[in-house]
């Protein structure tokens, strides 16, 4: 292949750049930053496209060489010859993955499905990258680097960080995880152990499962035995029930017999027969009665009673007082008490009596009374007349007024006198008594009142007179004066008795007459009381004498008459009672004796009849009663047992007595218990075995899975080992395929190298570079760096010769001889020009001294 030209429309810093290439050597001497890498990337992109720009991916070429200009098509075209034809590749990139590519052959579009680079070079992009571009670092083959390694790397297409050795190491390491040479502790060994373990477990569980049918049989047999044992026990229980029934029947008969014997034993004690209950009861009653009678003897009337009776007899030696005597005495006692009370309490004066006595020191005489009556009547009469007269007459007022004046003066004088009299009486009352005080007060009050009235009337009259016109009636005035006089007179009569006219003279007069009458009655009454008192004293003395005589006869002395009388009554009563009781007691005792004798006769007859001793008869009778009860009880028992036994026999259908005794249920139950224990144990074993065998399918499945896993591990291990083998084989093949030809090719170049370097360069079997100098073979380390770079170039060329089958690509060199001296550069340049005849070389340098024209 030979590049003809390229047009970079937009790629990196290039914009509408056209570059022509020489068939052999196209030199570029440009300063740094020209765009050598950009050109190299553009050519690569034309042949191999550009990777997609991913959001999170590294900064790849598509992004890296996005046109700086920002506009226009991103791409261009390249023209080249290959296989005798002229080709043009047009390629434009857009967005993240857009790739518009066209191929023209001799001007005509050509369809090409595969990548252009693959098509033309039969090599992938990575291989093309590694071989077609040569930088200074690539050129420099240091003395410490192994050409073989470098060639291997180039051939292997891997970086320095991974190589065949590393790959083999990783495979080996991985394989060892599956299987170690020794020591175990790997997956296969572990899984194998697991498989073995599971196999053993499964065998064991199968064995357990296989044993189950036999255990089932055993359990069923035990079940049958248990059932038989239970039936046997049920039968035995039935038998035992029958035996028990017969035993019970026998017991009942035995009890009946025992009762019979007991009856006989008791009856033997009574050869004359057992006394009847009624007889025994009769005798008991008789004995009790005897006891009672004996106990009662002499108790109805005691010694003490006798003494008391004697005492009463003494008391009533002169005779017992009759009831009427006692009643009379009672009456006398009451009379004595009454008289005593009356005489001992003084006559109480009533408040009314006291009041009357205070008013009236003595009874008012008839004369006095008459005066008061006349005065009262006169006043009433005057009052009536006064009231009947009119109050006023015409023209008479002034005259009447003048005429009346001396009257008023007279009345006023009387009023004053009364007042003075009142005062005087009041003063005299201190020595004379309250009555005078009242009289004094009354007189004074009357006088004062009269004065006020006089004044009132006077003034009133005067007013009338002053008024003129109608004048006061002089007749009435005279009557008035008269009335007043009479009034005063009446007052004077009553005042000494303390009667005031506050409530009116009528009331005062009436009260006076009422009081006078009452006073007279009072005096009369007092006199009567005194007479009565004297009578009572006399009577009292008589009564007392009677009572003394009465009580003395019986010798009764008490503090009071009433007590004495009560005492006497009691004594009489008691005496009568005692006498009566004594008589009765004597009668009863006689009767009791007779009865006692009768009972004793009965008891004796009883004892004679039954041959019993009278001594201790009570105890004997108790024994008889007990024996009688025992016989009755035994008879009942006998009857019940006999009847019961018969009934029991019928009920239980006891026809045939069992020959054997009761079965030993204990032993049978013990056997049953043993069987049940075995059954439980068997059931438990079955349960356990079923539990253990139950997960046999799970174990089998687990084994299957483990087996599968183990097979998988073995397979993986085998494949890993095979992989390593294949890698080694590939390596050998590769070496066979590439390295030797490269070596051979390099040997061809070594002739040119000798011319260029002046040294004869050789490559050993181990790819070690050597050279001859001064007749001796020296190690390549001794070559200068410039010489080494030239050697490396030849190696690269040799490699390219072998790697590219179809078309040899062009070679881009980026300042490969920077470190050569001038002399060696000239030689290298010559070499380069010679090499360019075989392969198109594009040569870059930034040093003019290294420029090649």
């Amino acid at each position, binding site marked *: 292949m030979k590049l003809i030209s390229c047009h970079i429309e937009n790629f990196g810093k290039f914009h509408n750049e056209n570059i022509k290439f020489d068939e052999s050597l196209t030199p570029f001497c440009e300063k740094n930053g020209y765009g050598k890498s950009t050109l190299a990337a553009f050519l690569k992109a034309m042949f191999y496209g550009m990777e997609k720009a991913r959001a999170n991916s590294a900064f790849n070429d598509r992004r890296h060489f996005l046109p700086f200009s920002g506009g226009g098509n991103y791409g261009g075209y390249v023209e080249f010859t290959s296989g005798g034809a002229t080709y043009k590749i047009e390629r434009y990139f857009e967005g993240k993955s857009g790739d518009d590519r066209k191929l023209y052959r001799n001007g005509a579009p050509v369809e090409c499905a595969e990548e252009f680079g693959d098509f033309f070079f039969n090599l992938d992009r990575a291989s093309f990258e590694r071989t077609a571009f040569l930088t200074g670092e690539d050129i420099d083959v240091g003395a410490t680097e192994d050409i073989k390694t470098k060639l291997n790397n180039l051939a292997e297409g891997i970086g320095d960080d991974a190589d065949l050795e590393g790959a083999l190491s990783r495979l080996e390491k991985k394989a060892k995880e599956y299987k170690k040479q020794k020591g175990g502790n790997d997956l296969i060994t572990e899984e194998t152990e697991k498989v073995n373990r599971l196999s053993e477990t499964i065998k064991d569980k199968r064995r357990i499962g296989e044993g189950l049918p036999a255990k089932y049989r055993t359990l069923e047999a035990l079940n049958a035995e248990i059932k038989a044992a239970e039936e046997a026990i049920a039968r035995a229980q039935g038998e035992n029930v029958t035996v028990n029934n017969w035993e019970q029947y026998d017991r009942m008969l035995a009890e009946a017999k025992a009762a019979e014997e007991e009856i006989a034993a008791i009856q033997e004690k009574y050869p004359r027969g057992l006394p009847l209950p009624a007889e025994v009861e009769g005798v008991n009653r008789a004995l009790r009665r005897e006891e009672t009678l004996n106990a009662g003897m002499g108790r109805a009337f005691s010694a003490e009673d006798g003494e008391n009776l004697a005492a009463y007899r003494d008391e009533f030696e002169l005779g017992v007082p009759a009831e009427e005597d006692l009643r009379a005495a009672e009456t006398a006692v009451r009379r004595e008490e009454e008289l005593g009370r009356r005489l001992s309490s003084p006559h109480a004066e009533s408040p009314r009596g006291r009041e009357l006595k205070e008013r009236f020191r003595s009874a008012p005489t008839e004369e006095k009374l008459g005066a008061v009556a006349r005065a009262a009547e006169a006043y009433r009469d005057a009052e009536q007349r006064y009231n009947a007269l009119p109050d006023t007459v015409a023209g008479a007022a002034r005259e009447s007024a003048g005429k009346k004046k001396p009257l008023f003066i007279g009345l006023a004088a009387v009023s004053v006198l009364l007042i003075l009299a009142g005062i005087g009486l009041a003063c005299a009352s201190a020595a004379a008594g309250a009555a005078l005080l009242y009289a004094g007060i009354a007189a004074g009050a009357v006088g004062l009142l009269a004065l006020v009235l006089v004044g009132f009337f006077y003034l009133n009259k005067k007013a009338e007179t002053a008024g003129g016109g109608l004048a006061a009636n002089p007749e009435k005035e005279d009557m008035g004066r008269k009335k007043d006089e009479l009034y005063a007179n009446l007052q004077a009569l009553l005042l000494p008795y303390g009667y005031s006219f506050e409530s009116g003279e009528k009331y005062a007069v009436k009260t006076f007459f009422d009081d006078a009458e009452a006073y007279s009655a009072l005096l009369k009454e007092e006199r009567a009381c005194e007479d009565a008192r004297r009578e009572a004293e006399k009577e009292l003395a008589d009564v007392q004498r009677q009572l003394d005589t009465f009580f003395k006869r019986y010798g009764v002395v008490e503090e009071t008459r009433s007590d004495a009388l009560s005492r006497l009554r009691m004594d009489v009563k008691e005496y009568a009672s005692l006498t009566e009781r004594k008589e009765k007691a004597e009668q009863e005792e006689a009767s009791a004796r007779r009865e006692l004798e009768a009972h004793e006769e009965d008891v004796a007859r009883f004892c004679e009849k039954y041959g019993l001793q009278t001594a201790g008869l009570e105890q004997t009778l108790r024994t008889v009663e007990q024996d009688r009860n025992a016989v009755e009880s035994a008879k009942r028992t006998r009857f019940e047992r006999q009847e019961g036994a018969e009934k029991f026999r019928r009920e239980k259908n006891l026809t045939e007595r069992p020959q054997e005794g009761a079965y030993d249920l204990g032993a049978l139950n013990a056997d049953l218990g043993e069987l049940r224990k075995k059954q439980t144990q068997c059931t438990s074993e079955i349960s356990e075995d079923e539990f253990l065998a139950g997960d046999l399918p*799970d174990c089998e499945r687990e084994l299957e899975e483990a087996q599968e896993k183990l097979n998988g591990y073995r397979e*993986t291990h085998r494949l890993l080992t095979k992989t390593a083998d294949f890698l080694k084989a590939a390596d050998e093949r590769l070496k066979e395929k590439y390295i030797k030809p490269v070596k051979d090719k390099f040997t061809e170049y070594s002739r040119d190298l000798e011319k260029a370097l002046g040294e004869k360069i050789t490559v050993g079997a181990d790819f070690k570079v050597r050279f001859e100098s001064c007749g001796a073979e020296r190690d390549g380390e001794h070559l200068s760096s410039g010489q080494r770079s030239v050697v490396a170039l030849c190696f690269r060329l040799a490699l390219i010769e072998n790697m590219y089958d179809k078309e040899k690509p062009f070679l881009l060199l980026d300042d490969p001889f920077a470190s050569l001296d001038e002399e060696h550069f000239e030689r290298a340049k010559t070499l380069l020009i010679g090499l360019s005849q075989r392969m198109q070389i594009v040569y870059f340098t930034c040093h003019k001294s290294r420029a090649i024209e």
Partner: protein
Amino acid sequence: MKFIHTADIHLGSAMNKFPKEIADKRKAELRDTFKRLVDYARENVRAVILAGDVFDSDAPFKKDKDDFYSIVKSAPQVDFLYLRGNHDSASAYTGEPLPNLKTFSEEWTVYDYADGGETVHIAGVELSAENAASVYSSLNLPKEGKNIVVLHGQVGTAGKDGIDLKRLRGKNIDYLALGHIHKRSEGKIDDRGEYAYCGCLEGRGFDEAGEHGFLLLDTSGETVSRTFVPFAARTVVEADADISSAKTAHDAYLCVKQQVKLNKNDLYRINLVGETDYETENFAADVKQYLKDDCGFADVKDKTEKRLDLSAYDNDRSIRGEFVRQVRGSDLPEEEKNRIIVYGLKALEGRELDV
């Protein structure tokens, strides 16, 4: 009259086709389903026909038998016509005899049921090597009434577990109640009678997917009619889900949800199918975890085809390319080649070998 036809209950089954965490639950559900069947029978039918394989093992455990007997005993008014199948052998624990548990033997046993004017004869025999050929000729059923025959085996040729339908023609059979096949199916015997497998009562693994229950027989009509009664506690479903478009485990889960109708009560075996890159990790565990709230249980298997594009290495002159070419050129099986290539490439690239 009505009867229940059920079979292949497999009480005591380990359910080990299910993962351990679900197996124990399923065992309990199986026992409970049988109990519910008996509760149903108590109210609705005269007898329950157990056409074999009531238990899972040749020698069922005593505890499983005791459980069975206890449930049967709880419905004394219902007869249980118990035909042992190939899974219950004579060496098993027998337990107490129950009056309503009727068994069959190696000779024909007939149980008669009458109600009103209706008479039903239920005949059954336990096939064995000794009677496999002779049972057909010794079967004599009356023409009148309804005749139900109970057998356990595979329809086909006569044998210990084989039933020759041709030899049952013309035997006045109205209904042949079969057990042994766990999936429901039916067919004709002759002009008079039909046969049916009722299928098992509960799916015991993902190979027994679909609806399960029992057949309710009604003899009151002209023929013995049957109605399928779904009765299983859960339905077992196996389904494929194409996850070719999934880039992540969650994508795969969404693909499953789109393509498979999920029911919270049921058990699922989801097969992830389609094509994924060889280096794509296995999504099965993650998808299973995501599905845990969408269904009763999900077992997820990765059955995707792995792609490995090796054409890129055709022109690779490096050791990678050479290695790939070496492996591809070998006569190893494709799957091995792909695995070796993946291991080798990862090793060369210095990546972790998560094999």
